[in-house]
């Protein structure tokens, strides 16, 4: 005969909902936690209210001269007046519609990309876009007057440098990635040398090299202007990084894919372009976006060799004798612009990563 012991009643589960409970769990669960919370609140109080006071409450938005800016707050009038400098640099005012048109075309291009899925058509659209963009911005055709590259500046120049760097370095990078994973010893060692050399030195030394040594490499007749030299330097630099990322993608492709491509009798290039590369690029996309973000940030270095990109505009506009002493506003404005660009790219890259992760499972 079994003896049954009654289990004593358990306490009712505590009410695990509500703000107070959440705070006790997440903010004040232990003395250390409470101290950390206090520290966090202190940091927030230290940073946020003064910044809001400076940038919004005490700030000046109206008007168009320095006289409007009195007191301690930010003077956003400065940004408003200099906005066109930040966007276009010295690009002639009457021709700015051309730059705007290129930007509008870009939006149209993205829209068309959503509609048309055929890769060859996309390729020709993209190529066409770059040709049109070049003609519009530089001029010299169809009665458009030429706007010299030393007039290009601001956000427009930053985007041009980044875009050219990305587009031109991509095929070169892929070729070096092929070279590095090739079985041919000489091709391989040339690729390894190039990649390791470029990755081992800072971008600024490569920019110096392309701006002071490159002209020595070519006969006197051939001259490169400052912007083109910077673009060459940035492209060479970026190509090495892309090569390493693509190589990582190539290595992740199972050898069965290579063998299958060989088995159906594809040539090396057919195998790489039709079978291996599409899969490798898919794996590499998050890292590629990461390296594009890095490149976008690195475009600021062109200011050191005397180009007027977005960042250089801060120094230029705040040395205007009418607007001395507004660097802070300039830097904050440019910081926000860069941050928005880079952050949205990194959010996009994370969403891509998620999408491709589920695909593989």
């Amino acid at each position: 005969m079994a003896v049954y012991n009654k289990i004593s009643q358990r306490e009712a589960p505590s009410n695990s909902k509500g703000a107070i409970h959440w705070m006790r769990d997440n903010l004040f669960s232990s003395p250390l936690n409470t101290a950390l919370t206090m520290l966090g609140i202190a940091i927030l109080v230290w940073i946020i209210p003064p910044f809001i006071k400076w940038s919004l409450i005490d700030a000046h938005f109206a008007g168009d001269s320095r006289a409007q800016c009195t007191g301690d707050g930010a003077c956003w009038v400065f940004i408003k007046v200099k906005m066109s400098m930040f966007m276009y640099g010295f690009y002639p005012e009457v021709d700015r519609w051309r730059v705007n048109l290129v930007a509008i075309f870009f939006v149209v291009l993205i829209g068309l990309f959503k509609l048309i899925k055929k890769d060859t058509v996309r390729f020709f659209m993209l190529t066409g876009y770059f040709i049109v963009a070049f003609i519009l911005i530089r001029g010299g055709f169809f009665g458009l007057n030429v706007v010299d590259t030393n007039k290009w500046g601001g956000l427009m120049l930053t985007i041009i440098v980044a875009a050219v760097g990305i587009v031109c370095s991509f095929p070169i990078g892929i070729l070096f990635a092929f070279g590095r994973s090739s079985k041919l010893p000489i091709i391989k060692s040339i690729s390894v040398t190039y990649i390791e050399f470029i990755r081992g030195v800072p971008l600024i030394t490569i920019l110096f090299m392309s701006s002071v040594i490159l002209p020595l490499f070519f006969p006197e007749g051939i001259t490169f202007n400052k912007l083109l030299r910077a673009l060459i330097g940035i492209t060479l630099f970026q190509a090495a990084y892309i090569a390493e990322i693509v190589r990582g993608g190539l290595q992740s492709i199972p050898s069965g894919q290579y063998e299958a491509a060989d088995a159906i009798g594809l040539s090396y290039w057919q195998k790489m372009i039709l079978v291996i590369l599409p899969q490798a690029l898919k794996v590499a996309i998050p890292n590629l976006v990461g390296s594009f973000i890095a490149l976008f940030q690195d475009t600021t270095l062109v200011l050191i060799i005397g180009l007027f990109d977005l960042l250089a505009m801060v120094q230029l506009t705040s040395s205007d004798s009418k607007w001395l002493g507004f660097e802070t506003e300039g830097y904050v404005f440019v910081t926000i612009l860069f941050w928005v660009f880079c952050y949205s790219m990194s959010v996009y890259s994370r969403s891509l990563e998620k999408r491709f992760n589920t695909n593989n499972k």
Partner: protein
Amino acid sequence: MLAFLRDRRVRGYLFQLITIIGVVAFLWYIGVNTTHNIEQRGIKTGFGFLNSTAGFGINDSPISYTPSNSYGRVFLVGLLNTLIVSFVAIIFSTILGLFVGVLRLSKNWLMRKLSAAYIEIFRNIPILLQILFWYNVVLRSLPSPRGSIDIFGTIFINNRGLYIPQPALDATVISVLLSFILVIVFVFFLNRWSNKRQEQTGQEFPVLPVGLGLLIVVPIIGYFVGGANFDFSYPHLQGFNFQGGKQFYPEFIALAMAITIYTATFIAEAVRSGIEAVNKGQKEAAASIGLSSYQALKLVVLPQAVRIAIPPTINQYLNIVKNSSLATAIGYPELVTVFAGTTLNQVGQAIEIISITMLVYLVVSLVVSALLNWINHKMKIKER
């Protein structure tokens, strides 16, 4: 003939031959043009310039330097400054990155969000912009020497930099430094001995508390052994400027700070991914065999987390060295500023100077990648 070309091996040789011819032709073309251009423009060649007098001043030099020194000395000053600022940034960004990375996973909601915000904000702003911001906005807005921010009357901060007391290199300082080194070496061997003993007998030795204790006690003993006499040179206001003490220039502070804050975001992410990568089952297994939470952390979680976190962190150290070259934008006299900048402008021998500069960075990164390979090899999970 065509059948011959269809052979994959033959085609491989052919392709390589064409590549070599292409590369050599390109290099030859460049070489001919360069020598022609150099002759045409009357540019001097060779490394003789390293011995000639530089003739310009460098305000921030770790070794004695005067304008009458040679360009070779300028190179050395630049190199040392590059190494110094990199070293400082490496130390501080590691500490900051470690803190933020751990806080990113803490139980405290506010701290978790704050460290995430810190990472997302500073990682997405170009480093050059951050350097210029610290230099042109924050440090410029500091008061002049007369109105310096005064910390206990010994440390002063103003728009000319940071002034701290500097100990003279006498017996006490040397003996304290020596005892520090001694303790570190001792703890290193103690740790090896205790690991070995634990593997053999299972007995644990409290290395961390003992080590920390020694690190405090021994230098204090060293202080008294060395004569218990710190001879500080204190900064003091004299006329319009500070005299004495050690001055850190605004350029140095802006550069070190910007690089530290920027790089710490990447190190924090490396630390976080290292800790997160350790399988939850590992912690559960450690708990189920009765390890305390400290033991589980020390013996099970950390060794695995460190293995994942170290390689990306070392890569960040390399990035710090490379990013220090951005000093040229604010004029901190490191390698690129004084050598690839001022010296190049004066001498004009671009090829030699840029090559030397690149070579320095190449050597550093080769050393770092050799170190990385060695660590990776050492840390590789030994599989049977």
